């Protein structure tokens, strides 16, 4: 008997009576069938966006960063805003797969696969920005500490941008490994069910010769734990390091020690919102409502209201410190040009979307409403985009010397580039939804032992037993 006993009063993690075969059927069969019309529509829209993004990037690389509306005062705008935004979104996957695994949160199994995929794709999108935003992209390899014959010329280890390079690339590598190692047993399942040669070949290669032997399972479990252990500090470190891009500078509005926890909370906040957005669509289209239940969404909404309140606290702390710190430049940045001034509107969009509106999730009814969850997931990500915009642009546009004050509106290649990353993200996600099991089949099967209708039915026998008999049976069990 499995060690874990879960009360039958608890909400099941998987709805309906499922046996293992049924789970496999439910999750794997969409991979084997032809995709629906909606899939094609979505996929081609994504491809079109990706194409436009590629054109925008080509335009910018060919003619120079000057086609963007950045200027002598505002050196970063939509580019780095989008970078931080996508990296932030990428946090949910690892948090769900690593930290929740370590905390033995059973509900993670329903969402972790998609969330991890989202992480990978989001980090891929994020990585575009710091590379493409360079004035000389073709020299981007200069940021790598590679041996060379020019002295050697070495990178500047003092620069937070360099830390970013390491942080993001490590994060991407570990997340990818984690995700892929989880996929191995499921790929093997697809391979074993495959009716076409090509599928057998491709999934056979992808599953690395998985046989399902006990040794494989044992190693697989160990690897998961090791990677979870590795990823856990990464969840905290990546956005901490991203926040150092700002925190270590001298610009009022950037130069604050509160950034690391504030950024991490914000990242989880936006990441969970993005997971909600994607899963609500996925469960609907792939008919996975029984695996991705309202209970899952509620759990994530709880995290959203928590992290939303954390960022809210951070915003207020920033304001307090701007006043209490008695630094006139910082005071002006926060009170005159961030909360007010020509870009003040962006601050209030941020406040509304990130702090005020998520408070609806204090109500259970709201947490469990699919419509509200979906709407809020979008709102939160709009808010988080504006948070990064506010931090970057409202600090830069009116800093120390008023002679250099400027204003910023994006140009079409900047918007196009952002749209292009949506294209990339959804192209990847659509391919993922079609060719990969969007729910971790093997893991879901493992929780069927402790949750779901089957478990409850089995437990009801015990529940109905008189206590004495149960105690007697336990005492005399062999």
């Amino acid at each position: 008997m499995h060690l874990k006993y879960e009360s039958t009063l608890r909400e099941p993690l998987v709805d309906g009576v499922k046996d293992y075969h049924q789970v496999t059927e439910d999750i794997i069969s969409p991979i084997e069938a032809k995709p629906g019309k909606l899939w094609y529509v979505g996929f081609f829209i994504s491809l079109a966006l990706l194409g436009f993004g590629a054109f925008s990037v080509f335009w910018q690389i060919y003619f120079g960063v000057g086609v963007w509306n950045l200027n002598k005062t505002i050196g970063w705008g939509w580019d780095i805003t989008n970078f931080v935004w996508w990296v932030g979104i990428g946090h949910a996957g690892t948090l769900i797969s690593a930290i929740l695994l370590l905390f033995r949160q059973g509900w993670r199994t329903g969402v972790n696969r998609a969330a991890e995929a989202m992480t990978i794709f989001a980090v891929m999108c994020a990585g575009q920005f710091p590379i493409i935003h360079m004035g000389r992209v073709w020299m981007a390899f200069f940021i790598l500490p590679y041996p060379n014959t020019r002295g050697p010329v070495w990178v500047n280890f003092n620069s937070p941008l360099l830390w970013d390079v390491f942080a993001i690339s490590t994060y991407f590598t570990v997340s990818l490994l984690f995700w892929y190692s989880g996929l191995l047993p499921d790929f093997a399942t697809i391979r074993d069910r495959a009716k076409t040669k090509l599928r057998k070949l491709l999934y056979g290669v992808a599953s690395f010769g998985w046989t399902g032997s006990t040794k494989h399972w044992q190693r697989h479990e160990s690897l998961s734990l090791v990677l979870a252990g590795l990823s856990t500090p990464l969840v905290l470190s990546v956005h901490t390091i991203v926040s150092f891009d700002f925190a270590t500078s001298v610009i009022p509005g950037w130069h604050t020690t509160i950034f690391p926890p504030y950024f991490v909370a914000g990242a989880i906040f936006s990441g969970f919102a993005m997971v909600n957005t994607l899963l609500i669509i996925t469960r609907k289209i792939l008919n996975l409502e029984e695996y991705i239940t309202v209970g899952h969404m509620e759990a994530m909404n709880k995290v959203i209201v928590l992290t939303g309140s954390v960022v809210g606290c951070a915003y207020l702390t920033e304001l307090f410190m701007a006043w209490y710190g008695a630094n006139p430049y910082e005071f002006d940045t926060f009170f005159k040009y961030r909360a007010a001034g020509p870009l003040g509107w962006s601050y209030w969009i941020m406040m509304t979307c990130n702090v005020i509106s998520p408070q609806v999730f204090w109500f259970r009814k709201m947490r469990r409403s699919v419509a509200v969850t979906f709407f809020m997931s979008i709102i939160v990500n709009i808010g988080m985009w504006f948070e990064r915009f506010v931090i970057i642009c409202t600090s830069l546009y009116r800093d120390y010397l008023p002679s250099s004050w400027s204003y910023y509106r994006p140009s079409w290649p900047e918007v196009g580039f952002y749209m292009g990353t949506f294209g990339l993200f959804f192209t990847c996600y659509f391919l993922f939804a079609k060719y990969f099991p969007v729910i971790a089949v093997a893991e879901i099967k493992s929780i069927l032992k402790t949750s779901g209708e089957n478990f409850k039915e089995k437990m009801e026998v015990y529940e109905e037993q008189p206590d004495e008999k149960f105690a007697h049976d336990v005492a005399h069990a062999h």
Partner: protein
Amino acid sequence: MEQKKYWKGLEELHNTDAHQEIVKNEFSEELPFESEGLLNARTPRRDFLKYLGFTTAAATIAASCETPIKKAIPYVNKPEEITPGVANYYASSYTIDGEYLPLLVKTREGRPIKIEGNTSSAITQGATTAKAQGAVLSLYDTARLRFPTIAGNETTWAELDKQVTAALSGAPVVVLSSTLLSPTTKKVIGEFLAKYPGSRHVVYDAVSYSGILGANEASYGKRVIPSYHFENAKTVVSLGADFLGTWLNPAEYAKQFAATRKINAKNPEMSKHFVFESTMSLTGANADERYTHKPSEAGAVALALLAAVGGSVTAPTLDPKVAEGVKKAAASLKANAGKALVVSGSNDVNVQIIVNAINNAIGANGSTIDLANPSNYRQGNDAEMAKLVADMNAGAIGSLIVYGTNPAYDYVDAAKFTEGLKKVKTTISFNDRVDETTELCKFAAPDHHFLESWNDAEGRTGYFSFVQPTISPLFKTRAAQDSFLTWTGNTTPWVDYLKGAWVAKLGGAEAWDKALQDGIVEPATAPAMGGASFSGDVAGAAAKINSAKKGGKLELVLYEKVAIGNGRLANNPWLQEMPDPITRATWDNYACISNTLAKTFATQLGDDYEINTEKKVLKIKAKGKEVVLPLLIVPGIHPDVVAIAVGYGRSEKTGKAAGGIGKNAYIFSSFNGTTVDYFAPEVTVEATGDKYPVALTQTHNSYEGRPIIKETTLEEFKHNPHEVNEDRKELDKFGKDFRKDATLYGNYSYPGIKWGMSIDLNTCFGCGACTIACQAENNVSVVGKEEVAKAHEMHWIRIDRYFSGDENNPEVVFQPMLCQHCDNAPCENVCPVGATNHSSEGINQMAYNRCIGTRYCANNCPYKVRRLNWRDWNGADSFENNLYDVADMNDNLTRMVLNPDVVVRSRGVMEKCSFCVQKLQDAKLTAKKAGRPMKDGEAKTACQMACAADAIVFGNVNDKESAIYKIRNEEQTERMYYVLEETHTLPSINYLAKIRNKDAAPKAEKESAHKEEAHHA
């Protein structure tokens, strides 16, 4: 020892047949390269390596074949005086339109690349202006005429001479020139005219000073411009004369005036400067006390001032504020009698007579005004010009030779001039391009650029300067003097003629060589200054002023911009892109109006106005003419005045930079019968409903009370010299030495040279010469209007201009801002690739080749002085066809202006001020070669050299004898501060607080009152 045999397998032990077979073949499998086809290969590793090797080699060869071949042709016979890599300097002079600036021209490998002031001149003492700095670019102007033309078709000089000589014969000839400072050229013209009886020479200035000349003729019997001596004046009153920006010879006056504005705590004295004007001029921006009036009241203000200094005229009624100002100014003038000066920008003879009367009354004649040794800066005569135009229209002129002047564009009644020109049989232009006048002339006989010419100049009587070629003529042009000589029938080449004249005058060829070497010939001792007895008809002038037509509700005034001036050098991308000192606008003219007036057009200063480049467009009508221009709000302009800069609206043929930019405002000037008026007393203005983008480099006007600017009044400074730097005491909290004690990190002590700069806010008048000098020295790119509007301009040194106080009459402060070369530079530690780093001499350096353009350094620069190459401005990019060049700056011709010592930056890299590191290296190496330590003053930056006011001091702060060391540690300890030093950036540039000589602020009064009370108690 036992010989055991070990077997590797059973097959070996039993020695089966199969095993024997295997032993026979050394390689049990087929070698992979013997297999056929790549896909069949059983061991493709070797094939892979083969293909890898081949493709790498092929790619290398292919790539190396593509390398473009650049031709570098070495000297076959090296000219004796040219050493590649070593600059030659030639003395020359800038004399365009009568401005007088003796120069040194730096040439590299035979190309002039930089203009510097000639410090041996007693008049300018090395001062330059932005226009003079930019003149070297005009040499390489692609729009210059490259050959003589007849009716627009190319011809030879021989053919042109033949036709011209035939055409000139018989009829009276008129030579129409701008002010010529050259006595020898005038002699040549005289000889030429003598050949054609009835001929004459008419001098015409685009912006006329006929009023002063006429007034001096009436007052002193001499039609001259006196030499002004601002350095002797304790009180200067300017009645609309922009003597620091555009009036007569501003560099000379800035140099003189700056001498009276230098101040330190030991000697806390400075001149007092009053300005009465209509628009906000550079001089007004530097005033201690400034009052605004309508342009039609200029005479009234002069009269009131005369009355107040004791003249026998009645003061007209004026606005109470202005009247108060007149009273104050008069009091100060009287208190400093004999050490005071009044100058007026009016071109009205009567107003200038009154000004002469004032100067006479306050004893300026002979002390600050020298009539004995007059200046020749302007010689134009409006009445003669008017007569010429009338004669032309009457058909009385047979031939007209236009020399360095462009009346079809800038004359009061250009249409009438153009009409008249059609009636002149023979029209010849010496102008350097197909400008508005040349276009209408039959013959174009283009003159050399002054950097290709021989000439002399007499700026002040007895003070000569020379012009000598710094390069062979680039085109088939010919010196105007040669043309005159040829047409006179004199076969002497101009150079021999000039040399002959000077050898005769100086008494020998050696003296002539020395004169060329020095660039100047001046009296050994300055001749005594002299006044003249004033005999002007004050009563008559006053009556005429009083009877002048009163202005309407709104009035219009024309002004010259510091960079563009009268429009002669308009096709100069550097000057077009130089931000106007007051408006900070580039590439345009516009209607300057006050905030009060702007409100009537539903726009005003504020966030919306700041963040949108699109400004409302106004239709301005006066004197039956109209122009449509965007408005620009200029704090400090009189609320009922519209001001428009002249020099814009040039024809397309003038060149790519000037053509079609802005509108011609000369149409609003008018002839009053004696002189030209540059204002219109009645004007109507209406909004057209359109909007038009204006490219400003600075949109926010206030420094928000931040301690980046420190200023105080003279009285307060005398009372407590430390008051201005009170906030620096906060730094003491960190310990004895803020540099060392306010950080956790170590401190580098700079044992060798440590470069430093000091900028005096008191003597920075904001003229912008440094910006252009820097642009020329450091190959700073021109980006064009659209990119300036996107805040992509590249200037390494900018002049921040801040307004404070009353929006209708604000105080102005200029702050040159350039890389501060912070010893704890925020830019340096954020660069991921270490492209920007610190030298052991304290210079913040850029390694362009290493820069990848993340812009992190620019974001983290508190001074915002770093400039990214947003586009491919200059072709230094590996991408084809993406050059962004709006002004022909990349033509092979224009590129000759590039300084070979400074690399041209490619697209995508960051750049900024380098402290002219190439010049510093040069100075160090020169000292090293001479085997001695470098002396103070040997290493100079371009901005420092260009500054007429010597506001910039640069040097080695470790050298206790250096000026910079003395400023920081001895002379200016009270005024010295660093911008944003509290952030511990440790800048290498310090500023000296601005001191205004005005009535004390309430704070000082309160303090002194308090002190006295305490004293009495």
